[in-house]
C-alpha cells in the first residue's frame, strides 16, 4: 500500500464526513431552533389580507320599523383565480379552454345572460399589457383586485316570484359546484331606505356612499384611517349626512379579514385564515314612522291649502306661494325627536348602497324648495309672534312688569301698527296679549325696557332682559342635535352689533353713497352712522320675533317643549339606543337637559295663556282647533306670522300638548315659508298632527277645513297618547348577513351548502310587519 495515498485518503475522508455534519447542524438550527422566525417570515412573504365589508346595521324607528336596512340581493360571483384558465395551448397559439367555455355555457342557461358576456366579466383587465387602456381593450373586464369576487349577475329578488327564481338559481350553482368551479352564489347587502308607511325622513337619515379620499384624510386617528382605507379597497361604504354619518361608527361594524396565500405575482392560491366580519349595530331612533308620515302629510296639506285656499293678507285675500316648510314633533319629557318633516321632501330610496344616480341628484339639487335641505333642522326664519312667550318671560324678570299687571294694547305704537283688524284692546294682561297676539303691547314693553337700559346711550350694565331671556331658552346657539347638521338661529346682542359694525362699517359707509335702492341706501346710512348701537327699532322688532331674530323650527320646538314640560330644555336626540346584532342593548341614548332659569310661576302662567290661544274665541289658534276634543286633550300653542323682507310672511304655529290633566307629552311646531298667517296655514297642520297622535278623526272645524287624516282609522299613532317607553324587540340579525363575506371556497365545501341556503332564506322580501296604508306619491 502506498502510505502517502492512504494517508491522504484518510484526510479526505475526514474532510468529506465533516461536510454533512456541518449541513445537518445548520439544518437543525434552521428548522428546529430558528423555525419560528422563518415561519413568521413565511406568513409575511406569501400571504395577503383581503378585507370583507361587514353588513351595516339597520336604522329603525321607535317600534322597529326599518328606516334604513340592507336588502339582500343575490349575486353570482366568480373568483378569477379559481376559474378554469381562459386559454390553453402555447402563448403563441392560444386555444380557448373548453372547460371554461362549457362552464359559462352552463351558467348562461341558468341565469339567461350570454356566455361570452359572462366570460368577459370574469376576465381580469390586462393592465400589465394594455396599462390604462385595459378596460377598453377587453370590454367588460374586471378592473378590481383578483382577490375580490367578481360580480357576474345580480339576480332580481324583489318580488316573491323573483325571489323563488333567485333561490333556484343559487341552488343550482351551489349544489353543483363541480360543474361551476370558481363560481358561486352570494347574498350581498344593498343599503335601502324603505320609507315605511311612506315616511320619507330623507333629510334625517342621510345616506351611504363610497368612501372618499376626504373621508380617509379626515379620519380621527391612524387606526380609523387604516380601517377606512381597507374598507374603501373592499368596496365598503360610509355614512354620508344625517344619521348614517352621525352614527356611522356603530352602524359600520368591523371588517372581516380573509388571509389568502398568494404567489409572487399576488394571485391567491388558498385561504389560510378567515375572520368573519362583525355586523354593525342597529340604531333605534325616536322617530316614529307613522308620526313622521302624519307630520309630512299635514305639512304637505298645509302647503297645498295655502297655495289653493285664499287668505287675508296685506289687506287683501290671496293665495300664497308656500315654497317650503317644516314640522317638528318632540317628546317634551325625553327631548327625543319623534318626527321632523320637511317640505318639499323626496324618496330616500333614490339613494342605494353605492350612491345616487347623478341625474336624480342634479334634479334634487335644483328642485324648487331645495328638498335636500332640512328646513326642520337648518331652516332659519323669523319666529314672529311665537317669540312673544319669551318676551313675556323676559319682561316679568324686570321690576317694570308683572304677571298680575295689565298693560296697554294700542292700535298703533310709534308708527308700528298692529295687524289689520287687531285694533286697540285697551289695558290687558300678558295672557290676553298672547291670546290675541297684540304686537303693540310688546312694542311698548320693549320700548320701556330699552329706555330703562339707557336708550341710545346705554347704562353701564344694561339689563337686556329680552335678549337674555332668548338665550336662556336656547335660542341663538346650536341645538346640539345628534346630526351633522344644526343651526344657531340668530339672537343679536349689543356686543354682536358692535362686532358687526367693527367688521362691516367701512362697507356700509361706502354703500351709503353708492346704493341705488333708496330703502337699502337708508339702511346703509343708518348702519354707517350708528350701526354699532342697539336702537329702538332693534328692541321693538326683537320683542315680536322680527328683525334680526331667527330660529329654526327645531329650536322653537325645543323651547316650547321646555314650556310644556315645566322648564327643562333638552339637547335633542334622534338616536334612542344602539342595539347589537344579537339584540343586546349596547347603549341607550338620553338627551342631555338643563333646567331653565325661569320661575315655575311664569311657566305655569304661560302654559295657561297658551291654552287660551286655542280654547278661547279671539285666540289666534281657536279656529284651527274648533271641534278638537279639548275636554280630553290639553293643547297650548301660539301662532306666528313673521314678516320677511320682500316675501310673503312665514306662517308658524308652535305648541305643546297631551292628554288632559297630565303633563304635556309633545311639542309640535309647524312652519311654512311664505305660508301667510300662522293661524290659517300652520295651526291646522299642527292640529292635524295632534289628531294623528291621539287617533282622532279630525272632525270639521268651523273654518270649513276638513283635515284628511289618512291614519285616523288605524287608531292613534301613539297608543295611550305617549311614545313607547321601551325599545322595540329587534330580532337578532340573521346569519345570512354574514354570508356574503364568507369566501367562495367555503361555499364549495359540502357542509357550507345548507348554511348558504339558510342564508338565501332572506332572499324572500322581508315580511311587512306594518301593513299600513299603501305608499303615497312624493310631494316635491
Amino acid at each position: 500500500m502506498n502510505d502517502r495515498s492512504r494517508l491522504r485518503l484518510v484526510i479526505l475522508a475526514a474532510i468529506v464526513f465533516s461536510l454533512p455534519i456541518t449541513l445537518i447542524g445548520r439544518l437543525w438550527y434552521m428548522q428546529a431552533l430558528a423555525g419560528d422566525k422563518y415561519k413568521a417570515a413565511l406568513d409575511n412573504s406569501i400571504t395577503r389580507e383581503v378585507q370583507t365589508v361587514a353588513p351595516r346595521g339597520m336604522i329603525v324607528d321607535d317600534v322597529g320599523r326599518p328606516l334604513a336596512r340592507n336588502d339582500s340581493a343575490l349575486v353570482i360571483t366568480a373568483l378569477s383565480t379559481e376559474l378554469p384558465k381562459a386559454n390553453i395551448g402555447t402563448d403563441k397559439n392560444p386555444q380557448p379552454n373548453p372547460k371554461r367555455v362549457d362552464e359559462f355555457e352552463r351558467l348562461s342557461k341558468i341565469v339567461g345572460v350570454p356566455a361570452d358576456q359572462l366570460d368577459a366579466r370574469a376576465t381580469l383587465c390586462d393592465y400589465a399589457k394594455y396599462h390604462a387602456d385595459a378596460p377598453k381593450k377587453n370590454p367588460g373586464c374586471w378592473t378590481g383586485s383578483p382577490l375580490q369576487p367578481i360580480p357576474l349577475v345580480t339576480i332580481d329578488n324583489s318580488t316573491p316570484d323573483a325571489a323563488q327564481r333567485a333561490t333556484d338559481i343559487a341552488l343550482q350553482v351551489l349544489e353543483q359546484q363541480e360543474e361551476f368551479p370558481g363560481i358561486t352564489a352570494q347574498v350581498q347587502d344593498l343599503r335601502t331606505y324603505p320609507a315605511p308607511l311612506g315616511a320619507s325622513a330623507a333629510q334625517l337619515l342621510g345616506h351611504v356612499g363610497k368612501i372618499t379620499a376626504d373621508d380617509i384624510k379626515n379620519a380621527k386617528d391612524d387606526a380609523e384611517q387604516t380601517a377606512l382605507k381597507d374598507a374603501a379597497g373592499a368596496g365598503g361604504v360610509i355614512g354620508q349626512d344625517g344619521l348614517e354619518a352621525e352614527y356611522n361608527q356603530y352602524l359600520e361594524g368591523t371588517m372581516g379579514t380573509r388571509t389568502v396565500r398568494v404567489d409572487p405575482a399576488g394571485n391567491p392560491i388558498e385561504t389560510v385564515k378567515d375572520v368573519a366580519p362583525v355586523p354593525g349595530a342597529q340604531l333605534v331612533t325616536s322617530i316614529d314612522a307613522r308620526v313622521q308620515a302624519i307630520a309630512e302629510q299635514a305639512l304637505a296639506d298645509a302647503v297645498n291649502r295655502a297655495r289653493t285656499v285664499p287668505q287675508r293678507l296685506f289687506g287683501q285675500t290671496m293665495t300664497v306661494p308656500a315654497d317650503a316648510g317644516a314640522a317638528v314633533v318632540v317628546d317634551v319629557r325625553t327631548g327625543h325627536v319623534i318626527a321632523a318633516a320637511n317640505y318639499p321632501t323626496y324618496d330616500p330610496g333614490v339613494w342605494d348602497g353605492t350612491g345616487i344616480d347623478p341625474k336624480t341628484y342634479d334634479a334634487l339639487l335644483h328642485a324648487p324648495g331645495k328638498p335636500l335641505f332640512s328646513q326642520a333642522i337648518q331652516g332659519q326664519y323669523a319666529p314672529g309672534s311665537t317669540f312673544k312667550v319669551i318676551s313675556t318671560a323676559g319682561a316679568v324678570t324686570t321690576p317694570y312688569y308683572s304677571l298680575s299687571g295689565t298693560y296697554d294694547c294700542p292700535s298703533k305704537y310709534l308708527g308700528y301698527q298692529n295687524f289689520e283688524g287687531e285694533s286697540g284692546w285697551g289695558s290687558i294682561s300678558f295672557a290676553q296679549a298672547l291670546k290675541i297676539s297684540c304686537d303693540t303691547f310688546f312694542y311698548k314693553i320693549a320700548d320701556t325696557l330699552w329706555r330703562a337700559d339707557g336708550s341710545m346711550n346705554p347704562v353701564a350694565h344694561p339689563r337686556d332682559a329680552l335678549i337674555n331671556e332668548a338665550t336662556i331658552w336656547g335660542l341663538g346657539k346650536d341645538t346640539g342635535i345628534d346630526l351633522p347638521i344644526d343651526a344657531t338661529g340668530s339672537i343679536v346682542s349689543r356686543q354682536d352689533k358692535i362686532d358687526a359694525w367693527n367688521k362691516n362699517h367701512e362697507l356700509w359707509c361706502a354703500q351709503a353713497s353708492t346704493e341705488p335702492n333708496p330703502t337699502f341706501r337708508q339702511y346703509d346710512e343708518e348702519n354707517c352712522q350708528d350701526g354699532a348701537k342697539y336702537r329702538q327699532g332693534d328692541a321693538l322688532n326683537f320683542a315680536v320675533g322680527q328683525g334680526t331674530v331667527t330660529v329654526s323650527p327645531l329650536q322653537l320646538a325645543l323651547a316650547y317643549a321646555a314650556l310644556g314640560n315645566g322648564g327643562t330644555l333638552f339637547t335633542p336626540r334622534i338616536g334612542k339606543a344602539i342595539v347589537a346584532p344579537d339584540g343586546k342593548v349596547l347603549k341607550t341614548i338620553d338627551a342631555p337637559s338643563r333646567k331653565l332659569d325661569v320661575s315655575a310661576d311664569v311657566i305655569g302662567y304661560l302654559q295657561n295663556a297658551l291654552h287660551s290661544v286655542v280654547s278661547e274665541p279671539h285666540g289666534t289658534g281657536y279656529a284651527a282647533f274648533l271641534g278638537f276634543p279639548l275636554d280630553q286633550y290639553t293643547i297650548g300653542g301660539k301662532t306666528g306670522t313673521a314678516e320677511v323682507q320682500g316675501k310673503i310672511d312665514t306662517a308658524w304655529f308652535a305648541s305643546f300638548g297631551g292628554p288632559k290633566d297630565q303633563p304635556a307629552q309633545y311639542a309640535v311646531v309647524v312652519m311654512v315659508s311664505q305660508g301667510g298667517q300662522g293661524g290659517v296655514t300652520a295651526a291646522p297642520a299642527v292640529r292635524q298632527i295632534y289628531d294623528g297622535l291621539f287617533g282622532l278623526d279630525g272632525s270639521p272645524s268651523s273654518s270649513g277645513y276638513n283635515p284628511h287624516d289618512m291614519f285616523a282609522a288605524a287608531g292613534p299613532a301613539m297608543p295611550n297618547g305617549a311614545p313607547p317607553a321601551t325599545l322595540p324587540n329587534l330580532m337578532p340579525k340573521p346569519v345570512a348577513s354574514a354570508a356574503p363575506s364568507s369566501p367562495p371556497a367555503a361555499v364549495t365545501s359540502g357542509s357550507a351548502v345548507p348554511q348558504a341556503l339558510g342564508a338565501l332564506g332572506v332572499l324572500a322580501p322581508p315580511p311587512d310587519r306594518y301593513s299600513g296604508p299603501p305608499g303615497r306619491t312624493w310631494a316635491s
Partner: protein
Amino acid sequence: MSAPWNLNRGNVQRVSSLARPDTTIAKRGLTRPRTTPPPSEGLLGKDSKLRYSDWVLWAAVLSLSMLGVLLVAAATKPANPTHPFHVAEHQAVFLAVGFVFAVLTSLADYRAMRSAAPVIYVLGLLGVLATFAIGTDVNGAKAWIRLPGGIGDIQPAEFSKVAIIVLVAMLFNAKRRERLEVGDVDVVRALILVAIPMGLVLLQNDTGTMLVLLVIMFGVLAIGGAPTRWLAGLGIAMAIGAVLVVKLGILHGYQMDRLTGFVHPDTDIAGINYNAYQARVAIGSGGMTGSGLFHGPQINGQHVYAASTDFIFSVAGEELGFIGGAAIILLFTVIMWRGLRIALRAPDLFGRVVAAGVVCWFAFETFENIGMNLGIMPVTGIPLQFVSNGGSSVFASMLAIGLLQNVHIQTKAGPTSAVL
C-alpha cells in the same frame, strides 16, 4: 470479504479476493490483472458481475433518485396546472436512462475503461467546445446545448468532470505501474490537461462547474500521489487567485452580487438575496416534519425560483422538514462513505483515484448546493445530484456511480492489482 453467494460455487477462479489465488503473481508483476469473470448469464443472472456491485451504494442512489422525482414533482406542479407531473415524468425517464448507463458502466471491462480514458477526455473536451458553436445561454452561462425535439438541454461540462477524473487516474496509474513515484512532470502534464477543459468552462462563465473541476483536480492530484509541495503550492495559488479575482473585479456583476449577498444575507431580500432568502424561509418554516409533500406554501406559491433544480433542497426542507432534509444529507453521506471505501480497497491506483475523484466531486457539489440552500455557501449554479431536475447532471452522476461500481466489482470479483 466473502459474500454468501460466493460459497458453494463451482468456479474456483472467481472465488473472492480473500483467497487471492494470483496475488503473488500479481505482486511480482508477472502478469497483468486478469480480466474477470467468465460470460455472465444476463445482467441479474447467477453469474452476473452485477452481483459483485455495491448494493448499499445502489440503494442510496436509487433512494435519492426516487426522492428526487417526488421533489421535482412537488416543485414543478404549481406552475403546470394542466400537466402537473410532466416535468417529474421526464426526470424519472432521465433517471431510468441514467441508471442504465450506470449499470452498463459498472459492467464495462475495467482495463478497457482504463485505456479508454483519453477517448473519454477528448469527447468531453469536444462537447464543451461544441457549446461555443451551438450553445444556449441559461442564467448567464453559455454552457448548454439544446437537444432537438424538445428533449431538453445538455451541459457537456458535466461530462468533463468524469473526463478529468479518469484521465488523471490513468496517467498516474501508468506511472505507478512502472514502479515510479508521481513526479513533477506528471503533475505538470496532468495540470495542463485539466487546465484545458477548465479554461473552456471558465470562458463559458460557468463558475460553478469551474469550482467543481478545481476541487476534483486537487482531489485526484492528492490521492494520485502528487508531491505534497505541489498540493501546498496549488492550495496557496488558489487562495491568492480567489482574492485577486475578487479584488481585481474580474468577476461579472451577478457573480459579485452573489458574493456580496452571501456576505450580507439579510440585506436586499427583494433583490440579490431574494431567492436565497426565499429558500431559507421555505426550509426554516418546514420545522421537524415539514408541511407534507405537495403542501409547501412557499413552494406552491412559487416563491422560490429554480426550486426544481438548484434549489430543490428547499422543497425537501419545507415539505419534508428536518427528517427529509437530513435523510438526503445522510444518503449522500452513504454515497461518500461507499466511495471512500471503494477508494481504499481499489485494486489499483486507477480505481482509487477514480473513486476518490468521484467522492471529491460529489462531496463538493452536495455541500455547495445544500450549503447555498441553507445560506452557508454563496449561490452558484450547481445542481443537487440525482435530486435536481435535469438530464446532464443525472447522466454524469450516474456515470460516476457506474465508475465507482466498476471499481468495486473489480475489487470484489477481479484479481487485486498490487500497484497502488
